[in-house]
């Protein structure tokens, strides 16, 4: 008989059984956490499931939101020498779980050794934008610069703590988070010439993958941390 999984799905906080065409890439950290928990459960070891020791934060639910943004001006090189500019868009209203948000970590995965032969140094600039614009039509409105950093050996994931950004000034969780990502190729330190920006950029445009990992702590399942009362 058709298995009535409606109740269990409710229990999972889902309206209906998901039917993904393919699985999203699962970051190593999530696989590491689930494997550690399975091993602990199999050995009968007691676990504090309200603390994510691999991340060093309290929380009983982790959710990885995929980037739903778009690249800007992919047809022609940028005047300012940018390698790429991208709007990163995260639908925070998908976070259905109640409770305190204890972590919001943006991961920019630059892909495997994307520049093994070119080694250019990258400059990464990340801003919060009030309005992301429309794909192919309008640019995002300029926003507040969050961070700017140099990436000498551009490969693998870069991580940014965005916990202060996913809430508005009343500490209410935003419904959407829009960021403007700009990556420039800096002078190649070894040859002293500015490498042609389009070579590494095409590869970067293909391999760049952004995601936002949020951790929430539901007081219904997790007592406040037993901080010693003074």
């Amino acid at each position: 008989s058709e298995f009535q999984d409606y109740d269990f799905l409710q229990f999972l906080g889902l309206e209906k059984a998901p039917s993904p065409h393919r699985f999203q890439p699962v970051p190593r950290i999530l696989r590491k956490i689930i494997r550690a928990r399975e091993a602990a459960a199999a050995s009968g070891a007691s676990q504090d499931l309200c603390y994510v020791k691999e991340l060093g934060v309290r929380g009983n639910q982790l959710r990885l939101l995929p980037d739903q943004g778009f690249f800007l001006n992919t047809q022609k090189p940028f005047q300012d020498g940018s390698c790429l500019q991208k709007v990163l868009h995260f639908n925070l209203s998908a976070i259905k779980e109640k409770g305190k948000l204890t972590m919001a970590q943006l991961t920019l995965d630059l892909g495997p050794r994307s520049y093994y032969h070119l080694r250019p140094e990258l400059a990464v600039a990340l801003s919060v934008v009030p309005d992301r614009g429309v794909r192919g039509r309008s640019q995002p409105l300029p926003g507040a610069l969050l961070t700017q950093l140099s990436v000498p050996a551009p490969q693998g994931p870069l991580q940014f703590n965005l916990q202060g950004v996913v809430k508005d000034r009343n500490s209410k969780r935003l419904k959407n988070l829009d960021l403007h990502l700009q990556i420039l190729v800096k002078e190649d330190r070894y040859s002293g010439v500015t490498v042609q920006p389009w070579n590494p950029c095409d590869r970067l445009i293909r391999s760049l993958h952004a995601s936002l990992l949020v951790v929430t702590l539901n007081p219904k399942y997790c007592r406040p941390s037993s901080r010693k009362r003074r």
Partner: protein
Amino acid sequence: AAIPVPKGFCRNLCHRHQLFINFQDLGWHKWVIAPKGFMANYCHGDCPFSMTTYLNSSNYAFMQAMMHMVDPKVPKAVCIPTKLSPISMLYQDNEKNVILRHYEDMVVDECGCG
């Protein structure tokens, strides 16, 4: 001296039985990333009065079992989980979010008469 117990008597008594839940059997392997299944177990078996005096049973079960002997219309105590533990699940929802969450009371560790 221990009272000799008839053969097979223990098998009918309340105890934990193994039950592996394979998400493939439920068609959930299409959206549950990990684990592929888990050992949930279940409780089943008889709770005669003699059991309630030593198995990890509640006082309530002792009283109910005693009343069942006085008046068989009072149902016997029942075999229930007395220790449970959670599991964590990694799954993908309809908005391509990957979620890791733990669920309390998913695994039966111990059974008793309650």
